[in-house]
Every structure is written in C-alpha cells, then in structure tokens.
C-alpha cells in the first residue's frame, strides 16, 4: 500500500504529521492538567482541598487559568529588545516540545495493513538529540532574562543558565554509564532491550538517582528553582513578562516535566514495557493495536508516577541556596557520576571476558 508521487512515500508524511499533532496536543493537555494536579497535590499535602470550584473536582480550573492569562494586559517594556522579548518564551516552549520527537510512546500499531511506529523519529542518536534540545532550553531562559533589560531578570537568567549547564554535565555522565550497558543511543533499541530483560534501573540505581536529581535541576523545579527565587530576585527571569508570555514560560516548565518524566521512564523504567507480562504472548491474544494501547497506557502510568514525584519533592523540600546548588552539582554529582561510570565500565569489561 504505497502511493508514490515524485518518488516519495506520502503516507509516511501524513502518518508522521498525525503523530506530531497527536503528541504535541497530548503534551499540551497533560501540561494543562499538571498545573491542576500540582495545586491539588500541594493542597492535599498541606491539608487543604485545592481547586474544586470550576467543574467537578476543579477539573475546568486549567481552562479558567488559561482564560485569565489571555485576558490579562500584555506588556512589553519600553526598554526591552522587542524581538528577543517575544522570542524568549517561544524558544522555551519550542525546546520543551521538541524533545518529545524521539520518545517511543508504544509499540507498533497496525493501521489498515500499514505498520505505524508510535514514535515520531526513530533516529540512531536519540539520546544525543534529547541532550541537544534540552540544552537549547537555556536559550529561552537566557534570552528572556536578557531581553527584559532588568538587572534582576538578568541575574536570575544567569543563575538559571549556569544551573542548567552545570547539571547537564552529571546528567550526561550518568547516561554514559547507561549507554555502556545498552550499547546503543537509539531510544527504541533501549526500550527493546528492557522489554525482554530487566529494567535498566536495576543495573544503574546510582545512575538513575543522579539522572533524577539532574532532571529536577534541568526542569527548574524545587529544590532547584533558583531562577525563580522570588524573595531574592523578585521573580526571576520572567519578571517583566505578563499575560500569556508568562504563561508560556510556566507552561514550558510543565511540558519539560512531562518530557523528562517520559525520558526517565523510557531510559530506566522500561519505557512502554508492561511489568510482569510477556509482550509477545499478549500481542498474539489481544492483537497489535490493543497491545500498543496497553503499552502506551503503561508508559503514561509511569510518567504519571514521575510527575507526581516531581510535585511530591517540590512540596517537601525547601529551595537550595545557590552555593549549595553549585556545590552539589560540581563537587558531589560529577564525581559520583564519574565513579559510577568507571565502576560500570569495569563490571562490563569483567563480565564480557
């Protein structure tokens, strides 16, 4: 079933477009409800009820919040660099959304005889791509802070950028140890290995811990939300932003959280692997499409857990001081990640002999 025009598989293009639209809208919806969930989780942990007025259980709250943000007055400061000022939140949003391209959301589905992979781009360098895009997120922060032409925003942006760059280092190092085990940078291959064998977190508990901590820092979540330290920097890099441009910055944080949860689930917790189930057997009984649905649901359950973990930690731990943050990143996590890498290398070499 190939309809070729100009020697190009047009169905492939349509398939990918549908996937892109689907995944982008899913991540937007999830980010919306993350804001709701965050408030609910915070409320429950503080013996309150949280939003419960808009719709049943406050489920329409994100819509109300969005409407409020859109209705607010849009201010661009006179002294700011207009183009960069608008570019900042766009970049933050873009970088947050782009990461989702290489994450395998489920197995294959069978669409009228055509095999469709539930992954936008199954590239050989999946993890490197994620790293490249994640480091782009720094531009959003940095440009936003710079373009505001506000000393406090600039300071906060500097902090945010240096924090993001500092924590990318141990994150990469902890991943190298993982890559020694998997021997591949391809996301689908990493998941495929975990489908048959054990989840990578069993082999790499320390690596996962380092990755988790760095993910918190990369997403600018408490306890690492220093760019937003409202008491010292009276609001951080998005201080001059108003209306939906501010909303985009906040939204990007929630999308980042969703994507990094997905990455963690994929790399360390078996991706769409259903625990305790032989996937090949189940596929034969329920069919390919249903199986893909189950797998996607499993992945989303894992992602949900990690998102909850993000919130749980946020409402437990106070913010780090900046020197403590840098101390932890450079003096604790980098050596730990290096040690983890060396030990993994030694064990891999020893076992292969």
């Amino acid at each position, binding site marked *: 079933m190939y309809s070729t025009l100009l020697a190009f598989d047009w169905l492939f293009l349509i398939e990918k477009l549908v996937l892109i639209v689907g995944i982008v809208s899913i991540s937007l919806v999830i980010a919306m409800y993350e804001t709701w969930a965050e408030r609910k*989780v915070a409320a*429950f*942990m*503080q*013996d*309150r*009820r949280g939003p*419960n007025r808009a719709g049943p259980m406050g489920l329409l709250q994100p819509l109300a919040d969005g409407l409020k943000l859109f209705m607010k007055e849009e201010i661009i400061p006179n002294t700011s660099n207009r183009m960069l000022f608008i570019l900042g939140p766009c970049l933050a949003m873009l970088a947050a959304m782009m990461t989702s391209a290489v994450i395998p959301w489920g197995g294959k589905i069978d669409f009228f005889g055509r095999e469709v992979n539930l992954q936008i781009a199954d590239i050989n360098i999946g993890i490197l791509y994620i790293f490249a895009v994640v480091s782009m997120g720094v531009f959003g922060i940095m440009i936003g802070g710079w373009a505001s032409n506000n000393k406090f925003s600039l300071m906060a942006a500097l902090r945010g950028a240096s924090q993001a760059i500092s924590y990318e280092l141990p994150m990469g190092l902890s991943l190298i140890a993982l890559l020694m085990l998997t021997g591949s940078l391809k996301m689908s291959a990493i998941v495929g290995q975990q489908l048959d064998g054990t989840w990578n977190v069993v082999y790499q508990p320390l690596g996962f*811990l380092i990755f988790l901590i760095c993910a918190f820092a990369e997403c600018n979540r408490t306890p690492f939300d220093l760019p937003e330290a409202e008491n010292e920097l009276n609001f951080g890099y998005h201080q001059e932003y108003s209306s939906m441009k501010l909303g985009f910055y906040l939204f990007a944080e929630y999308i980042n959280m969703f994507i990094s949860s997905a990455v963690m689930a994929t790399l360390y917790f078996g991706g769409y692997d259903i625990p305790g189930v032989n996937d090949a057997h189940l596929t034969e009984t329920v069919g390919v499409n249903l199986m893909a649905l189950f797998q996607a649901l499993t992945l989303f359950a894992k992602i949900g857990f990690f998102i909850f973990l993000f919130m*749980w*930690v946020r*409402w*437990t*731990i106070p913010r780090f001081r900046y020197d403590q943050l840098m101390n932890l990143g450079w003096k604790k996590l980098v050596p730990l990640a290096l040690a983890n890498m060396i030990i993994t290398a030694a064990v891999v070499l020893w076992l292969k002999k």
Partner: protein
Amino acid sequence: MQALTNRARPVERKPMTFVERLYLWNIFKGMLITLKHFFKRKATISYPEQTRPFSPVFRGLHVLNRDEQGRERCTACGLCAVACPAEAITMEAAERKPGEENLYREEKYAAKYEINMLRCIFCGLCEEACPKDAIYLSETFAPANYQRKGLIYGKPDLLIPNPQEQPEEYKQALGNRANKQHQAN
C-alpha cells in the same frame, strides 16, 4: 535563668552522622511526612456550603429587637451608649405620636440609633445594659466596606425583620442563642 516552660531543650550541636550527611535519607523521611498529610483529614471548610459553627458565646453584629407584634423595643434610654466602653453608640430619642402604637412599644423611642462598627469591640456590654431586651449581639459578622461611613450602622441596618411580616427572616436574624435568651425573658 528559670525556664518558662518545661519544653525548652538545649540545641544539639553534634556533627552529622554519615547517613545524615548523605541528605537523601532525610529527604526521603520528609517526603514520607508530606505523603502522610496526603491522607489526613482536611482542615478546610468549604465556605458557602458549610459554615463554621459559632461558639455559644459568640458575639457578632448587633440587632435592634422587636417584640412579638413587630414593635420596636428600644426606648432610647441611653443605657447602652453609657455602658459602651468604645463609645460607639449614639442615639436621639423622640416621643411616640398617637397612631404609632403599632410601631413602638413604649412612649419614647430612638429616632436615630447609630453604632460605629469601626469603634465597636463587640464586648456585649450594651446587651447587658439594656433593660428592655432591645439590643443584642447576633451570630453574623459585620461585612467589610469600602468607605468608613458605610460602617456606621443606622437603624435600617440594625433593626431585626418584622416577625409578623417576615417571620423567616426574623427567625434567622434572631439566631439560636438570642432565641433562648428571648424565651427566658
């Protein structure tokens, strides 16, 4: 120095143990604490549907009472104004004219009766001073206002609804506590 309570405890300055210095374990303990609160009973009261129960001795907004036939009880004797430590009450007396017997219970009545809610301390001394059971403190709050003059309550704000024309509103304004007191008299 003598300790004020028996709960004082000297500050511990022991160096941290290895587990404490790892910090992660303590974070985990903290997370368990927050998780416990997840399942605790909520302290919040969903306001418009539920209201906080008032203490039986709660003293709220003043009400100028009427008798069973809807006549004002106040005779403008001024005892409440004298008793008021915050000097929040001012009144002007007037004489009842023939034909107004259905409005006022006695020959003298308050033509003007004002309570300045900005001064009032809700002590309840006016209620105690009143020989005619004409003023008492009900079970509602004085609502907030944008202007100072809005918080000077005149007779229209204070008078209880007429028990014959608006029996339900009257009962609501009377509240539980005043009801009992009313019956005792």
